[in-house]
């Protein structure tokens, strides 16, 4: 029993990171119908910039803040330079553009930073907390709390603020949103900034546990993408559940079946879910307009 609990704890921890990445995917997808494969690079940048700023002598909270702000700016730049000019391009082209951006950022990170693996100290120490025979690291609580806080924050933003509703309106119907006076270009910019900041936050929170290096982005991107798809693309609740589910499946597979195939389990489940629910767990059934 304590063994199961232990696996669940590690599943929740890694699942929270995936959920954050999946939320990032969702925000951009809703605003622009683009699946941004560079989402994982935001996580990488969050961790790397924080490490370098911290190593340069800045206190950790300030370093983290700088990392999140810088990554958000990069997200905006990416939108302006790569996504906006490609408006209306087919799905394959958009996939290649964002994967190209991901490869570009990874290549640049090798040059600007280095090729080492880095980590910084956990926020509230490394003393494990004992719960029901299993242990959990304080940093795991930070990550999980972070994911839930971001989700609640987004929910409030999208339902309670005018700006958030403008984003929702844009995702429902871009043209109609423009007609009622919503600045959809600004909504896009905002979405990329928000999404990049959330990715960077995930990197900041996760690095004391998962470590970081220039190449970690693509793994996070694939798992987060899988989580978002599992829940149903474009649905924040789906992204949260999907992300946590992928983390759980991974941890349970690693614990009970085979640690080598833990990455496989997530994709087997996705294939199975998509076979039976082609729109994911929470996705709307789409109808083609002829």
């Amino acid at each position: 029993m304590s063994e199961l609990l232990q696996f669940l704890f590690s599943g929740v921890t890694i699942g929270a990171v995936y959920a954050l990445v999946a939320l990032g995917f969702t925000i951009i997808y809703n605003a622009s119908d683009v699946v941004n494969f560079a989402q994982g690079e935001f996580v990488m940048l969050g961790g790397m910039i924080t490490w370098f700023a911290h190593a340069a002598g800045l206190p950790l909270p300030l370093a983290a803040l700088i990392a999140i702000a810088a990554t958000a700016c990069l997200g905006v730049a990416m939108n302006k330079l790569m996504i906006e000019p490609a408006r209306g391009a087919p799905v394959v082209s958009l996939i290649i553009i964002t994967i190209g951006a991901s490869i570009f950022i990874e290549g640049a990170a090798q040059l600007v930073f280095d090729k080492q693996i880095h980590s910084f100290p956990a926020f509230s120490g490394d003393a494990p907390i004992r719960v029901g025979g299993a242990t959990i690291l304080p940093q795991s609580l930070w990550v999980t709390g972070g994911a839930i806080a971001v989700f609640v924050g987004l929910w409030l933003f999208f339902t309670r603020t005018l700006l958030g509703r403008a984003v929702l309106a844009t995702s429902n119907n871009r043209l109609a949103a423009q007609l009622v006076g919503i600045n959809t270009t600004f909504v896009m910019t905002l979405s990329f900034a928000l999404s990049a900041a959330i990715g960077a936050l995930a990197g900041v929170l996760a690095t004391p546990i998962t470590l970081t290096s220039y190449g970690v982005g693509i793994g996070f991107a694939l798992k987060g993408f899988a989580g978002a798809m599992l829940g149903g693309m474009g649905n924040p609740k789906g992204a949260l559940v999907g992300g946590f589910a992928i983390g759980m499946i991974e941890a349970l597979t690693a614990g009970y079946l085979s640690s080598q195939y833990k990455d496989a389990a997530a994709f087997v489940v996705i294939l199975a879910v998509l076979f039976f629910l082609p729109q994911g767990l929470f996705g709307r059934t789409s109808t083609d307009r002829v």
Partner: protein
Amino acid sequence: MKMTPKTATLLVLAALIALTPFFFPSGYYYRVGALLFVNGIAVTGMVILTGYAGQISLGHAGFAGIGAYACALAPVHWGLHPALAVILGAAISAILAFLVGRPILRLKGYYLGVATLGLGILVAMVLNNERQLTGGPDGMAVPELGLRALLKGWGLTLSNGEFWYFFCGLVLLVGAWLALNLYASPTGRALRALHGSEVAARTVGIDVARLKLQAFVISAVYASVSGSLLALQNKFVTPDVAGFMHSIEMVTMAVLGGVGSVLGAIFGAGILTLLPQVLTVFAEYEQMVLGLVMVLVMIFLREGLLPSVLRKFRGKDE
């Protein structure tokens, strides 16, 4: 005499394959050329799947992995001749594509993307993890094809590089010929119809599910053969051949050059094969440049390089 686009494409391709070696400064270029043709074969499969039928796959490297490892494993374990192993690999790829194709191809756009991505990743993971069989991430040796020795017996002596250059070139030519025939056939027309509008295709009585499956299986065979040839000429194979990055490379090559036409896609394969060779001088910047090229071509030349360039030329003529 008026040439059909099909004959023109094949003639251009054959001429390029036959004449380029006259400009090779060293034997090394045969190797680069052979790699280009191997990529060209896989990319021709992507033209059928993405260019004709309009479906995406982010996991076709999985089939290349099956083809490659069939050539590595079957000769050792079952004493199969490597040439037959190529066919075995293609058959396994086709069967796998057939089995998973039907449920997967019901999906559209990004959902299809993630499903094929998962498929490719699963294949790569099996190759990485079944160490006792595949040697794991370190890879394994692949036996000699033996065709070169056979040709020597007939009095045709080729260096290793020359042999693979012309052999892969020939296979590419055959692959392109088949793809172009498919394009002009009723099946090809139906595929293009379904690309234009699935609903419209269905209303005129096209069996959409079966056609998509056909395109998926055919393109899987192309990828598998390309993987086999890569393994056989390297005489070594690692799980990278089935990796995510290889899948992305395939899609990028096809779309970069122009996924609508065989020649365009092969042109894209050429660019992405040659780019790393040119960039070895700036090894540090290789990744950045690759990413940048992908982004810029997709933004400014949406139909791909070759069609966009051709249009420019035509525009000047008029």
